[in-house]
């Protein structure tokens, strides 16, 4: 009897290995979906970007036109500045806010609700709101005047500043909208840190700052990574808010150029494709580089 039982407990040596195959069957629809709707169009775009606008054949004409266009290099610089400054600024403010709201004082949930409002607004609404605000007779100048901060004749020409100032303006508007998003990710991460881990930091000699640096932030690393990578990728792809406030080609950035060539000018479809391939490449390279540097790939060995 017992002998028989132990035999049946042995794994089936013969027969179809269902256990091994089932995961692949389950994942198959997703893989097929990816191939049809993602890999195929991406490959087509890449191939198409190496063909002339009219006719067939292989050409690097599209790319050489882009690389010889001074606006492209301007877009690269602008995008770079935008990414570095906006991600840094947004992270610092979002992290600070998350730390404050995580304290759970009276009214912290109200503060959280208020802080989340900008996230709920679509970019078009944000663009409209701020471009009307920044107009010479817009609400921002009126507000400043009614508070007595500026006089009738000293209206600020927000939109007429230098390129750098204009970019800063965009960064601030963008930050206003993105900070709640980052803060939410960081706050969720903070709430996942066991209270006692932080308290142990204080008991074992940590000041607020030391505990933040040596315990809170390392334990928050997965959330920080998520927030930063999502934000870096979306920052590289900034365009709509800029176009809504300044229009096309006043502050050129990478994705804005893609849209420009696709929507605003006739017969530059292939050029727009080449542009989007470049943007995709930049995003991938930056993302992989970031994940590598921040140690997200190390996974099991260390963490």
């Amino acid at each position, binding site marked *: 009897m017992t002998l028989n039982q132990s035999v049946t407990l042995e794994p089936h040596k013969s027969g179809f290995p269902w256990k091994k195959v089932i995961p692949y069957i389950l994942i198959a629809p997703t893989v097929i979906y990816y191939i049809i709707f993602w890999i195929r169009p991406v490959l087509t775009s890449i191939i198409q970007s190496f063909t002339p606008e009219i006719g067939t054949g292989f050409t690097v004409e599209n790319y050489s036109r882009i690389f010889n266009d001074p606006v492209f290099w301007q877009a690269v610089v602008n995008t770079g500045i935008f990414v570095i400054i906006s991600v840094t600024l947004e992270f610092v403010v979002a992290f600070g806010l998350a730390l404050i709201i995580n304290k759970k004082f009276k009214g912290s949930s109200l503060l959280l609700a208020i802080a989340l409002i900008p996230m709920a607004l679509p970019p078009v609404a944000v663009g409209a709101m701020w471009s009307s605000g920044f107009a010479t007779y817009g609400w921002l100048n009126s507000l400043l005047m009614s508070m007595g901060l500026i006089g009738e004749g000293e209206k600020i020409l927000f939109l007429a500043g230098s390129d750098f100032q204009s970019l800063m303006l965009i960064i601030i508007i963008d930050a206003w909208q993105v900070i709640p998003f980052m803060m939410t990710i960081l706050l969720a991460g903070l709430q996942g840190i066991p209270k006692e881990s932080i308290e*142990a930091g204080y*008991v*074992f000699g*940590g000041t607020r700052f030391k505990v933040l640096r*040596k315990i809170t932030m*390392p334990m928050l690393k997965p959330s920080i990574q998520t927030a930063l990578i999502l934000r870096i990728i979306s920052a590289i792809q900034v365009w709509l808010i800029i176009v809504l406030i300044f229009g096309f080609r006043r502050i050129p950035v990478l994705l804005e150029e893609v849209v420009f060539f696709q929507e605003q000018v006739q017969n530059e479809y292939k050029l727009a494709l080449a542009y989007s391939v470049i943007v995709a490449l930049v995003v991938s390279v930056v993302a992989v580089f970031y994940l590598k540097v921040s140690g997200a790939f190390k996974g099991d060995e*260390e963490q």
Partner: protein
Amino acid sequence: MATLKLKNLSKRYGKTVWGAKDINLEVNDKEFIVLLGPSGCGKTTTMRMIAGLEEVTQGIIYIDEKDVTFLPPRKRDISMVFQSYAVWPHLTVSDNIAFPLRLKNLKSAEIEKRVKEVSSLTKIEEYLERFPRQLSGGQRQRVALARALVVQPKVFLMDEPLSNLDAKLRVKMRTEMKAIHKKTQATTVFVTHDQAEAMSMADRIVIMKDGSIVQEGSTDDVYFDCEDMFVAGFIGTPPTNFLSMELGEKNGKLLLVNSAFSFEPIGENYEILKNYSGKQVIMGVRPESMQVFKEKKPESVFSREVLVTEPQGSHQIVAIELDDQIVKIVAPPFPKVNPGEIVHIGFEHDRIMFFNPETEKRIRKA
């Protein structure tokens, strides 16, 4: 090493909930004190106030005669083992232990030496380079212990440090921690809800209930000389049997009476009860302070049918029913007693405790 003194220490959560109320306690140098009580009685709250993790509503905390009530944790010269261990997952075992020393800016040679010492004391030398998630619960608990020991604090706080271990390991760690305390001689406050743990480890047990201290004393004090019915019912397994008795008088002699039997309080008990004639009292008697006889003896007070028996190897527990209440008696393993058998029961009179049914407090000699 150091002393710890709590004076009228109280903590109120919100407007009405008292986590701890009017705690007065003095812990002597090198003493191992255990706060014992059921869940929710305020042990953690008290400990967190000592650590500086919880704001004090009222009262004063002295460490070595110095008022530390409003100092942050790092300035109190304490260390703590948390119930969840709270070892930091992103640091190796050795970095976890070294963390408090690095914050004190000790030289790295000194740090290394102390980490080595304490890890050999807690038997975790082999795991120093591992991360906490690569350790079992028991090993993590040792890391937490090592980290707390390495700082050589004035006061050592432990909040249910063994409660997440399995039963066998828990008993083993009791002995080890006691041995460690022997070596380090650190003034220790240890929190637990487990009376066996408390009794086996403590120099002095402090029993808490509803945020207040109800009794403090040695293991024998809280076991044999209970202040009230709560302590008598809380300490001991099986707990104290409580029998409702009326004090009658017959032929000028006091008589303790209930529905099943009566007997005369003698010696000390007479002195205690002589002013209670005509009143109700509750008689508390520990299971091992009762005797079971197979034959009627002069010492036996009443007879009863055995309801069930629980053999325990070293002894047997005999349960009888009395006034709709189960009374348990601890008897020697032999002769075996069987359910259904009629047995004769006696008391060790000098071990009986009497309580006031209204206040539930112990009735002592006037």
